[in-house]
């Protein structure tokens, strides 16, 4: 088989055929065999994703080994990675339901994740400061509406100034919802456009495929 067929045409044809098949299944009643085939195809995504995860992990491990061997700055952290990787891999491969493996997940991985997630609260505060500076007319509107909604959401807001609740709810229900819905309509159209470009084989950069084209004027 030619290189172009394998690298370019085949992935695009497969994407188009299976993509259109999924769309047809969404709109039209299909025989059970086709629905079952589509379900199997969807499970392929998870399998491919898992295979890619192995590749990513192997490359990450190689990168850390190289970091240690070349004594890059803070190389000793890479040793911690290798120990943690080896420990969880051995325990996980022996049995995922093993108490030791679950202990690591419940008492180390999960709390670290939660702690990192909680960082968001602090960064949102400084981001809010950045947003709530009335540098121009638009920012001033954002500041005022943001302040009203904030006052509506905190209990003390209604106690200080009761009308803030209906005003805040009006802002959330009408101007804010209208803006969001407009955004969602635009995004949906963008997604349809993206799908058409991919299914017609015009967009293939996401596959790492490059074909020289003329410059856009």
């Amino acid at each position: 088989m030619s290189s172009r067929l394998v690298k370019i045409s085949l992935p695009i044809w497969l994407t188009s055929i299976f993509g259109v098949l999924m769309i047809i299944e969404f709109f039209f009643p299909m025989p059970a065999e086709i629905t079952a085939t589509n379900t199997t195809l969807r499970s392929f995504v998870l399998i491919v994703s898992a295979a890619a995860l192995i590749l990513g992990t192997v490359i990450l491990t190689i990168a850390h080994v190289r970091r240690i061997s070349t004594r890059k700055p803070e190389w000793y952290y890479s040793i911690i990675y290798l120990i943690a990787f080896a420990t969880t891999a051995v325990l996980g491969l022996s049995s995922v339901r093993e108490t030791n493996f679950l202990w690591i997940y419940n008492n180390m991985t999960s709390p670290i994740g939660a702690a990192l997630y909680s960082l968001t609260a602090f960064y949102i505060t400084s981001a809010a400061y950045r947003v709530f500076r009335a540098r121009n007319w638009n920012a001033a509107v954002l500041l005022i509406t943001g302040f009203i909604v904030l006052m509506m959401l905190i209990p003390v807001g209604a106690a200080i100034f009761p009308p803030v609740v209906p005003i805040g709810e009006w802002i959330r229900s009408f101007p804010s919802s209208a803006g969001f819905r407009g955004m969602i309509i635009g995004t949906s159209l963008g997604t349809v456009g993206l799908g058409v470009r991919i299914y017609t084989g015009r967009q293939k950069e996401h596959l790492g495929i490059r074909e020289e084209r003329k410059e856009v004027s």
Partner: protein
Amino acid sequence: MALIIAGRMLALVALLIIVAAILFYMQRAFSGKIPSLRRLSAVDVIAEILGRCVEMGKPAWYLFGSVDMTTPSILAPTVAAFQTLAYTARMAARLGAKFFVPVNQGLAYTMANDIVQEAYRAEGKPEAFDPLGTVMYLPSGADRMYIINHMWEEQVAGAFFLGSWYHEAVIYTENAARVGALMLGGTDTTHNIPFLVAICDYSVIGEELYALGAYVSQDPTQSSSLAGQDIGKYFAIILILIGAILATAGASIIWLFKM
């Protein structure tokens, strides 16, 4: 047995109209009739950010946010961000900017790696691509600390935040802002658009994320498809107006959505 699943007729008609409009404009582009499109300012911003990084001798980072490609709502913006990545990586290779792409999902990692490697090859600089360092897989969770730490360590001069962004958007963009990076942010995740717009120096929002990828593709048929999407917008405006008039008049159109 019904020909169409109940409640999906209107969606099918809308989809067919939009797809037909997009294909029409793409076909016109094939025959040389290219519609005039507003130039997205973000196209120039990409060069500006990379140029700044080259001048300062500091790296440019390209971050995707959530890239769980098994989730449909994340898949579309991630693929759109991949297309812009292809353009950005190529320009980074051309200008000689140090480029770094951290990815926190295996499937997205392999794709991003292929895209960036191909971009360096296309610019005749395959040796500048580090297979272990230019695109790096960072497991989800651990990626946050790595990214924050290295942003400060390397004093990133430019950063791109394109794709499907959730709470990490605030963490990363705030740190990038504090180290003085010039930023381009873009997402279709509605609840995080305000943060990206507020913190980043330049932003693309909602549909612009998809338009940017088509625009930088340098393919007239792709950019022409954007004109077809505009037909969809007109269609939506007409439907909104009709719906508003009917709702004001007290007419119920619920039956239409049950077809």
